[in-house]
């Protein structure tokens, strides 16, 4: 199924709190067996990563950072996991060896704070999210005012939210809600033009490639996480 209901009680695994997460399972090359600690934290999250195209596009752009895809659909996340395992095996003697990317079957709308500490992330991607066209399904959209407060918690100050969609109405919705949120500020076309991630986002995802083949439009909006105001 293309759709997945984020409100359902999926049989999902999620840590009780960020410190209890066993990241070593996902990034064994970054797990220090002596200290049983990770040598670094996940820093970039692809929310709703689909078939993993963006992760693959970003892996060599950020070779020294850990990237995580979160995908709620079980068949899709399994596909990506198998894909990464195969790539790690095939490229294990090479410089780009895919050890810094991983995928989790997870519901980010519900459990993002269970995975990530305050200010842990530098980038969050929302590529071609489910538009949930019906009015009464808008609460299920991945960008809402209330969810943005939780994304702002996980993002460090100066961190970036990237959005892209081929549905103009959804684009407008995301822009409207991000503009309305006090912790986010739009980055302009000039910034978009010089940012490598925007280019990768345009071209690397399976959905993006499909839209391009069909000569459809793609709508991008990027936002910076502002400093928390003094309260």
């Amino acid at each position, binding site marked *: 199924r293309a759709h997945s209901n*984020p*409100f359902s*009680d*999926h*049989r999902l695994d999620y840590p*009780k*709190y960020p410190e209890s997460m066993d990241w070593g399972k996902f990034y064994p090359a970054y797990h220090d067996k002596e200290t049983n600690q990770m040598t670094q934290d996940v820093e970039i999250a692809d929310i709703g990563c689909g078939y993993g195209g963006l992760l693959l596009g970003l892996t060599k752009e950020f070779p020294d950072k850990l990237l995580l895809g979160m995908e709620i659909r079980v068949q899709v996340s399994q596909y990506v996991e198998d894909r990464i395992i195969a790539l790690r095996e095939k490229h294990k003697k090479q410089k780009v060896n895919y050890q810094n990317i991983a995928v989790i079957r997870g*519901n980010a*709308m*519900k*459990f993002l*704070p*269970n995975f990530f500490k*305050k200010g842990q992330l530098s980038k969050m991607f929302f590529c071609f999210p489910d538009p949930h066209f019906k009015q009464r399904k808008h*609460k299920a959209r991945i960008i*809402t*005012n*209330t*969810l*943005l*407060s*939780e994304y*702002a*918690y996980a993002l460090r100050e100066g961190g970036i939210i990237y959005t892209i969609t081929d549905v103009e109405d959804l684009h407008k919705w995301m822009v409207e809600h991000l503009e309305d*949120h*006090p*912790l986010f500020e739009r980055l302009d076309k000039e910034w978009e033009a010089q940012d490598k991630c925007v280019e990768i986002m345009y071209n690397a995802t399976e959905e993006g490639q499909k839209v391009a083949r069909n000569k459809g439009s793609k709508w991008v909006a990027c936002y910076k996480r502002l400093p*928390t*105001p003094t*309260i």
Partner: protein
Amino acid sequence: MKHPFQNIEATSTHLFATVKNSLQVFSLNDGILVGEWLDTVDSQQNLVKQHQAKFEQLQKQEDIKSSSEEPETKRAESNSKTKIPKFPTPGPGAPPIYNYIRCLELTSDEKYLIGTTDSDKSIIIFELDFNSANCLKLVKRQVFPKRPCSISVADNNTTAVVGDKFGDVYKIPIDCEPPIDEKLLKPILGHVSMLTDVLVGENEGRQYILTSDRDEHIKVSHYPQTFVVKHWLFGHDEFISSMIFPSFDKTLLVTGGGDDSIYLWDWIHNKALASFNLRSLVEAYLNESHYPPERFRTETSVKEICVVKIVSSGRKIFVLLENVTCVLYFTINEDLTFSIDKVLDVPHPLVDLTISENQLIGASDSENILTFINIDPFEVVHNEISSKIAVLNPCDVSSRDDFYPLYAMNNLRKRSEH
């Protein structure tokens, strides 16, 4: 027989009780009825209104089409596409529709009482005037997009903070101004799963909102800058049903829910201070009704514990569990641990629990209607006003089959089939 009270709240002088769509106020001095309110809004009536509005809207569309310059064939085609929706009437076997008044909350100055209605998904705000023949004066009825299910009070008793079953939280002024159009309400914060409790806390001159949900989350947000999340209190393994600040120290938080344990937190500094496992205390009080529903039962199923309500008096914490004939009495020690003082037998299960001065009052699942418990010493005491109040309860039913669900909290437990 009398239907048990479903929600109760008390001051030192008065008891507030709901049963079905009735709200009653009794003097605790003599059991006299001093206030009463009946929710006459019929949820079916709501549907009638919605249907009529829809019908009128379609009628307008028809008029516009017929007055346009469209060619005849196109008009005929579009006319045939316009369907008048059938009025939705529940069929046989449809689940019963309950019209509760739920969630009573008093402002700390005891000037206002706030409740929630299922009939039209509203909060109802009453000004309390004990000089009137009926102390309940409805000053506001605010409709929400989704059923409200928890209430707290902020801003020095001027703002109601309301959580709904969709996980959204709204703030509503406690005043006599007209209600806000529900379509114009914007949530101040949210969860993705059902919100179960909301508290407003204060520390060093700042206000915070604490919200709990079905997915084991307790979120601490700044208020009124609710777009800034302070942190989450992680530790629960199941839904949270009840959160309270113990009255002797509001920087502490006690929580309970579908776990076997209750928890003590330093909520400002995000520290879990203590927990206490209740199972050994209550095992003897659990019965067949505490097993999972038949279709989820396995060989290894255990009876499930569900905290319904936690109330406090100083360092004393009282815990009510769902459908058991006992009340648990804990002390928060100087070193911020829990110790169990007593497991008190009560004659019948209690549906709700509240505190009034040096007494607990339980809404009893029995003809006695109320159970009175002295705090020191901790024991059930006979109180003759219970029988006076029982007579005044307006809901007579012929059998327990006519009871509204009294023990529904444990339905919050997630039971995944896929």
